[in-house]
Each structure stands twice: as C-alpha cells, then as structure tokens.
C-alpha cells in the first residue's frame, strides 16, 4: 500500500496485515435512529440481591438492565421500591420543575441573557429519583447535568438562576460558568469544569466520613464519556481498596458531545462492568425509569451505609437535548433519535404510572405544567431584576481577588488596587 509511513516494514509473507479498528460513527445525521446496538429487556425480571451480598453476586447485573415500569407503566418485580403516591407525585413535580427550569434557562441563553447553558432533558429521573433515594445530608459530587439533585433538595430556584446570570446575587459571585453550582448548605460540592475530577473526590470525602465515624455517605456522578478519564480509575481503585461508603454513578446518556458511547468503550462492554475488575458491586438500571433508578440508588446507599462498600451504578438513559448551548446535535446524530429512544421519557412514564394507579390525571398534569411554568417565569423575572450577565450588575471588581487564598497576599492586594483605579 502506497500510504505506509516510511519507517514501517512490509509484513512478512506468513503474517497477516494488522488493521486499525475505528468505532464507526453511526447512525449519521440525515439517516434514521438505529438503536440496534442494545436490546431492551423486559421489566421486573431482574432479581434483587440482599444489600450485604458479596460484590460478585451483583456482577451478572452488569449486563442486565433493572427496570420496574413495564410497557403499560405498571410497577413490576422485586425492584419495585413500593413508594406511596405522595412521594411519587413529589418526584414527578421535581422532574417537571427541572424540565421547566431547563427550558427557561435555555431560552434565556438563546436570548442573550447569559453565556452558556446545559439542559438535563431526558435525564430528570436520574437526578430527582437519586436525590430522593439518598439522605438530605449525604454529600453530592456531581457533573454539570444533575441539576435535578439541587431542585429535589429545595435549593432555591432563584439562587440557581442568579448563578446562571452571574449577577450581583449569584452565590458564586459571578466567578463560575453557568451551571457550575455549589452549595455547602445542601451538601452539594462545587461543580468542576474539568471532567471526572469529582468522582475520586467523592471517594475521598467518603473515606473522610468513615475516618470520622460519621454516618453520611457520598455519591458521585460522571458521564459515560468521562469514564475514560484517569479519575474514573482512581475513584474505583480507592473505593475498592478502602471500601469507601460511596455510590458511584455513570450516567450513560449515549453521547459525549458528538462522540457516541462506543468511543468511550461502550462497544466492548457495559460501563457497569468496569466495577468487576475492582471487586466492587455494580448495578445497571433504566435511567428513564424513576422507580428503578430510585430502587437501585437506595440499594447502593444502604449497602454503603452498612459498611459493605461502594457500588457502581450505570444509569442507562438518553441525552434528549443538545450537549450545551454551544452545539447543534443535528450535525452529528439523526434528528429523530430523541423522539424514538426505546426507553421513553422519564416524566411521561412516571405520570402514566400514577395515572394508572388513579393517583394522577392528564388535567392535573397539564395544570402542574402550567403552574411550574409560571413559577419559573416569575422566579426568572425576580432573578433578572438582580441583573444578567450582559447588563449586570455584577459583583464589584475588588471581589475578583478574594477567595484565591483565605488571606490575600501582597501581590493580589496590589493587583486589586490597580484594578480598582478608574
């Protein structure tokens, strides 16, 4: 072949030519969605082990998919957490609020009120069900796509919005890119722009909690794409060696910006299976199934709380929106993918389940949708009254030099003075 790089020598006659495998980018935009790369198992078929089983007992679950809601959205099987309607309605409300909030903030960016935004459309069950399955003081180390955790912990919408607008009331003083929330009061760790760093930090926090004889556990979230980062390996290694009380969640929403999960290794194995080589427990769950997600998270949390160590959960879901306001998904995937995702929409499925139970109705759903849209709109108005990125007001220039260190050294004091000069 004529395009051999100079140094390589021709294969010997008795040797096969090697081939480089590049995961094909499929399906392509223009074409139609093709989800043939995985099968959707029936709901209710996966057995639920006791929380104290040896981790190996859970390893077969790496290739299963825990599902509770069946095709008619009835709750079936051992993993049904048996939540009361009140709790389910609360979960539905928080998911709907998350979606309404996302839609509003996405538009706010589109209309130039801020620089950047990322929605969690299609992944609301992951955050909301998991927040409800954990205790309010369990420490959360998240990526940028679990805003539902904050909403389900009643972090004030207005604070979230002011962070998005980087305005004078932004709890983070306008320092962070929109969506990079932080709230110590809500046991929610500062979100990093650097992928994966939060996961081993969650393990470290959990080690500290165990070190202190505390009873709070930690939970960490990472996208399937970011599992290729070193810190994913660090998290699994340290969680295994020190049996840290932590729940490690891989949110497999099929895409990492324009790269399909196959580029992260999804072609060869599931992400839940990464736990096996470390002797960690693992679960693989339908992330668009509120009940299954709740049950799996609860199982892992109780296991950790009882000093049986960490669990890796793969939440199998779909990123229904763009990666962020900076990309156009139709450039890299079929436009009908979000509509045709085989595991459906988490909000719709939980609503249908409640309606099936006679605990919810189309009318109440519509009414709640409108109520939440109003709530979000009104809160947004209030938030904008405190300023937007473009218009301000912002925190004063002097604040730019604060919190680099606890005590400001001379070079920063000097630069602060310089910056304050008119």
């Amino acid at each position: 072949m004529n395009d051999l790089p100079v140094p390589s020598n021709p294969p010997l006659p008795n040797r096969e030519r090697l081939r480089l495998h590049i995961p094909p980018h499929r399906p392509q935009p223009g074409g139609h969605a093709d989800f043939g790369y995985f099968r959707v198992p029936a709901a209710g078929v996966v057995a639920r082990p006791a929380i104290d089983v040896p981790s190996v007992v859970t390893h077969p679950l790496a290739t299963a998919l825990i599902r509770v809601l069946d095709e008619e959205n009835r709750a079936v099987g051992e993993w049904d957490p048996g939540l009361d309607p009140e709790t389910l309605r609360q979960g539905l409300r928080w998911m709907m609020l998350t979606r309404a909030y996302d839609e509003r903030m996405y538009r706010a960016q589109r209309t130039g009120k801020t620089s950047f935004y990322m929605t969690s459309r299609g992944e609301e069950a992951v955050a909301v069900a998991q927040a409800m399955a954990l205790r309010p003081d369990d420490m959360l180390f998240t990526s940028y796509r679990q805003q539902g955790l904050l909403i389900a912990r009643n972090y004030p919408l207005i604070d979230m919005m002011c962070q998005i607008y980087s305005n004078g009331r932004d709890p983070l003083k306008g320092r962070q890119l929109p969506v990079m929330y932080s709230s110590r009061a809500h046991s929610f760790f500062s979100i990093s722009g650097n992928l994966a760093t939060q996961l081993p930090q969650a393990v470290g926090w959990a080690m500290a909690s165990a070190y202190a004889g505390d009873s709070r556990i930690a939970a960490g979230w990472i996208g399937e794409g970011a599992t290729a980062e070193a810190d994913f390996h660090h998290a699994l290694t340290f969680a295994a060696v020190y049996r840290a009380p932590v729940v490690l969640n891989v949110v497999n929403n099929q895409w990492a910006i324009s790269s399909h999960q196959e580029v992260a290794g999804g072609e060869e194995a599931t992400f839940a299976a990464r736990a096996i080589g470390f002797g960690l427990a693992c679960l693989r769950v339908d992330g668009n199934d509120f009940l299954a997600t709740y049950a799996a998270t609860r199982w892992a949390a109780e296991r950790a709380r009882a000093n049986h160590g960490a669990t890796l959960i793969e939440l199998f879901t779909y990123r229904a929106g763009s990666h962020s306001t900076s990309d156009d998904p139709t450039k890299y995937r079929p436009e009908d993918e979000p509509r045709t995702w085989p595991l459906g929409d988490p909000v719709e499925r939980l609503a249908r389940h409640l309606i099936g139970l006679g605990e919810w109705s189309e009318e109440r759903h519509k009414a709640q949708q409108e109520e939440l849209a109003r709530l979000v709109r009104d809160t947004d108005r209030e938030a904008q009254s405190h300023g937007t990125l473009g218009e301000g007001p912002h925190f004063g220039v002097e604040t730019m030099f604060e919190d680099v260190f606890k005590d400001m050294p001379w070079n920063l004091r000097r630069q602060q003075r310089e910056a304050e000069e008119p």
Partner: protein
Amino acid sequence: MPVMSMVQALNSAMDVMLGRDPGVLIFGEDVGFYGGVFRVTEGLQKKHGERRVFDAPIAEGGIMAAAVGMGAYGLRPIVEIQFADYIYPATDQLISEAARIRYRSAGEFAAPITVRAPCGGGIFGGQTHSQSVEAIFTHVCGLKTVMPSNPYDAKGLLIAAIEDDDPVVFFEPKRLYNGPFDGHPDRPAVPWSQHKASEVPEGYYTVPLGRAAVVRPGSAVTVLAYGTMVHVALAAAEEAGADAEVIDLRTLLPIDLETIVASVKRTGRCVIAHEATRTCGYGAELSALVQEECFYHLEAPIVRVTGYDTPYPHALEWEYFPGPKRVAAGIRQALAA
C-alpha cells in the same frame, strides 16, 4: 490569494500535511466526524478517511500516551486538547515522556508530536475555558511552544510544527479563531477578511519556528506580545500615541532573543504583555532575559502587563482581560520613567 480565517488556515495546514505525509494522523475529542468543537478539523475526516482523522476517548493522558507510542513507531500524530485548560491530565506523558524520550534514549527514539490546544479568554468561558497555560510548558526542556496571532502565521507555523521532529505544543488563541480582536469587546467584531494576514496560500509553506516578527516598527519603546495580545498591543500603541515597536513572538520556545534584544537596545524601554497570570508567567523569563542582555541600554524598568493572579472570572471577564487600556498605561509608564 484565498482569504482564510484562523480556523480555515489551521484546517488547511492539516489538510496539506495529511496529503503530503502518510504518517500524519489526527485524533482527539470530537475532532473526527464532528470536526472539533471549534470546527478546526471540519471536513478532514470526510476527505482523508476515519483512519487518518478520528475521535478519541475523553482522556487527555491517554491521547498523549498513544501519540507518544505512535511517534516512537514513526508516525507524526497531531492531537487536539479540546481546551488548554484540560491539558493537565496529559502533563505526565508530555513532560516526563514526550519531552525526554530523545534525551533518555540517546537519540534512538523521538516524539514528533504536535499538540494543538485552544487557549485564552474572551469568549466568556469562565475559569476552565479561558486559561493561558504556556508558562508551564516553556519551563520544560525538550518541548517547543508556539502561539500564532494570525491566519498566515497559524498555517505556516502549524506545518512547521508538524514537520518538526520534536514535540511542539501549539496554542491557538480561541478569541482569534474567527477574527482579529484588539481587546475592545464593546466594538463590533471584525472578520479576518479585513486583515491582510488573512491572505493565505492554498498549499504548502512554513513559517519557521523560533522567529519573532516585528509587526509595528517604532523607536521609543518595545512591546513584546504573542497571540491575542499582539492585537491588543497594536491598539494600545495607537491609543497611547506612542512610537512603540510591537514584536509578535510567535514562537515562545525557542525564544527569538536576537530580534528582542536588537529592538530593546534601540528603544531602551520594554513592555511585556500576556494574558496568563503574572507570577512566574512567560513574561518573567522575557523580563529576566531582557535585563540580562540589555541592562546598560535600559532607560526605564521593564513593565509587565498581564492577567491577574486569579482564576479567569466569568462575569468580570473584561475587568480581568489585560486590554488596550492597561497595555497603554504600561507603555506610558515605560515612557514616563
């Protein structure tokens, strides 16, 4: 001659080299089918095939390691780090391996790798999409470091970097991708087409590494800048109404000491401007070199105008950015003293 933006010029450089050298390949996050988040590799996979241009797992350390292995084989990998802010996971492979392999193997193995990374602020990217990290790499022996300021240089320097037999860290000021930027965010954005350096030959040419360019001759003060700050320095010189000589360093390592020293010896005054944080930034080395080489010619203290020693804030982007006002003040300070 075709008119190209920085993005198009960089794309053209890689297109040319993919065509000329079968050992050249490109990989990185989202660079394949999508063509990169800044579209710099757009169309290259379609034209040259998935074998030559492909997506990589999100692991900067793994990407760099694979490039080192490929370099040892004899290929010339070009890897993209999606943002310079995300290069840290790759530092061990870059600093401990790529930069040292020729030395530790007594010349048996080399790392002819080009590492592309968008750098700098100006797009409201916040503290993890705005960093200028060049000084971490200019301290490392065995690495070359480049930062172009316009399309013509960008293409010529990138081809030179790809052809270089040692590892080159190639920083691309993202604020310049689609137009020159003189540090006045309030003014309407200008496309590259209005800048003469947007005239870029279709085909192969190089701009040699290690040579600076005098982009504005002057006799009263020398302003050393690179990347976005070159345009800011030019604006500042005008606004200060100063007879300032502005030098675009283009390559940070190796440093073009001759050009710098010749200028400062003439002007007797020197201002250094960069966007990176001040302390131990690249400007410190420039300042040290200039005072070592030009001590007896210096009529005033060398002035550094830089980013502050804080992370790049989101809302206060323009208070942080060392714009024309601050550079002009630095020029005046150098002239006043």
